[in-house]
């Protein structure tokens, strides 16, 4: 029972982590809570659904194309709604702009697809493997494997490649990076693209796993993922991964052992508790402030 729940928690948590990475990367560079991120995740889930049901793509191909689509969407959103504001306004104005985009995108999808819940056709065999006393479904294995692959890939990109180095530089000091000849705008666009692609992968997998896709699915998922990013220490990439996994596990454990009607309250309650003990999040660094 316990191990079963732990596995379910890890599965849920790795999808939270995929979305949380987008929040934390964008935050690390431009200090913006990108509230439209949950909607990008929702668009990813819908893009996958359309590709699978109307164009007969298999799951992996649909996921890749959905990721590509959301990359473009992420870049577009940044170009239209955030870039004109950068540098000449407070961070809160950018936040309102992000909320505007979020409302716009979810309404747009509700107009196009209706507010009903859509279901994925059967894209993956309902096969379960037994590992000792543990039942592993094929979809769970896929979610865990794809998330792990994407996160390792991301970590490699950030630590070892040239653009990753530029991203790290920008997250330390945007102005200084600009003076060092880094094309800051391109790095920011790239960050939005990568974050959106990860969210799209999460969206497609959640859509298949829970067999439900609807236009307002982005809001709660976005809030939880933001909570995960904050819990891990916002701006820290390993923090988002750990925050996502622990939030998923806490939520599933809370439902299993405490009460299912308080599902969302448990997740947020744990988050508040973590922040009271460690105000900078699990992996965040304490920055001493000066005038």
């Amino acid at each position, binding site marked *: 029972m316990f191990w079963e729940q732990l596995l379910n928690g890890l599965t849920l948590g790795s999808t939270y982590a995929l979305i949380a990475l987008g929040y934390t990367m964008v*935050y690390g560079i431009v200090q913006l809570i990108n509230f439209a991120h949950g909607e990008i995740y929702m668009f990813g889930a819908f893009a996958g659904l359309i590709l699978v049901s109307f164009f007969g793509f298999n799951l992996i191909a649909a996921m890749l194309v959905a990721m590509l689509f959301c990359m473009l969407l992420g870049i577009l959103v940044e170009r239209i709604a955030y870039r004109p504001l950068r540098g000449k306004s*407070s961070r809160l*104005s950018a936040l309102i702009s992000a*909320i*505007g985009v979020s409302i*716009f995108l979810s309404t747009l999808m509700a107009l196009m697809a209706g507010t009903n819940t859509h279901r994925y056709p059967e894209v993956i065999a309902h096969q379960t493997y037994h590992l000792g006393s543990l039942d592993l479904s094929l979809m769970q294995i896929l979610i865990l494997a794809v998330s792990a692959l994407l996160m390792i890939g991301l970590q490699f990109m950030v630590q070892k490649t040239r653009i990753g180095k530029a991203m790290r530089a920008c997250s330390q000091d945007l102005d200084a990076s600009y003076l060092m000849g880094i094309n800051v705008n391109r790095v920011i666009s790239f960050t939005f693209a990568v974050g959106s692609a990860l969210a799209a992968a999460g969206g497609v997998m959640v859509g298949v796993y829970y067999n439900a896709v609807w236009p307002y699915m982005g809001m709660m998922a976005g809030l939880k993922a933001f*909570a995960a990013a904050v819990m891990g220490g*916002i701006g820290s990439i390993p923090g988002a991964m750990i925050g996502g996994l622990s939030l998923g596990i806490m939520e599933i454990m809370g439902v299993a052992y405490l009460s299912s009607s308080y599902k969302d309250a448990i997740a947020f309650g744990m988050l508040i508790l973590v922040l009271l003990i460690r*105000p900078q999040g699990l992996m965040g660094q304490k920055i001493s402030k000066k005038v």
Partner: protein
Amino acid sequence: MNALDATLTQYIDPYYLRIMILLGINIILALGLNLITGVTGQLSMGHAGFMSIGAYTSAILSMQFGFSYLMALLTGAAVAAFFGFLIGIPTLRLEGDYLAMVTIGFAEIIRVFFLNFEPGGRAVGLSGIPQHTNFITVWLIALIIIALNTRLLKSRMGRAFYAIRENEIAAASTGIDTTRLKILAFTAGSFLGGLGGGLYSHYMYYINPQDFGFMKSIELLNMVILGGMGSIPGTILGSFILTLAPEMLRIVAEYRLLFYGALLVILMIFRPNGILGDVRIYDLKKRWGRKEVKTCQS
């Protein structure tokens, strides 16, 4: 609808009367959030949580315990203020977006609590609340709140609030007790949140936990930021625009929220500091004064 509003509807269309009452309630709520976020600079994204505490407490008190309208409103607001005080304590340690997350989390916990709260009718909501709120009470309270707010922000304490927003460390080093003032701002702001909630529940007849979700908090935050952070005329203007905009946009029917979202983005692109963000009424008076002088000379 009570007698007073019935008389008023002879002169004003009931639809407009309703919008004006909701506008008054929104102004009270937004002024509360303005104290926390606009003036003191502590980003709170869970104001609807305080609103729901006030709404439920006062509704239950006047329905089941026979409290008078005023007593129910004040008790509801006081309970909300108490929770604001509780939330104010972590602000000692958290800042910026960590604080925003705690307020979101707190409001979500409150919502889930009311979804499972037996005396509040669980997910079905609470209906049959006596409809005491009318045009006169709402606007009387709103005007008192506006006046008190204006006095407060011009006082020594109000300036200390602004100082915390501008630079907390510098404020602390000039001898401002930032901890005490931040808690005070949270308590006062959530008192207004609870008061607005009580007015709302005694106007709407029926309340439901979904009325006070994350989107309501965001709507209130939009009102504060859109008009111009920390400015009372700005907050009133923001409440005015965002209460009216959804009604005006009814002509575009199902595209309403689409336009609403786009409107937020466009307003922020063209007025990044809020509509009245970099305009001060004092400067306007001076500029108009100068123009008059010029016309005299020419």
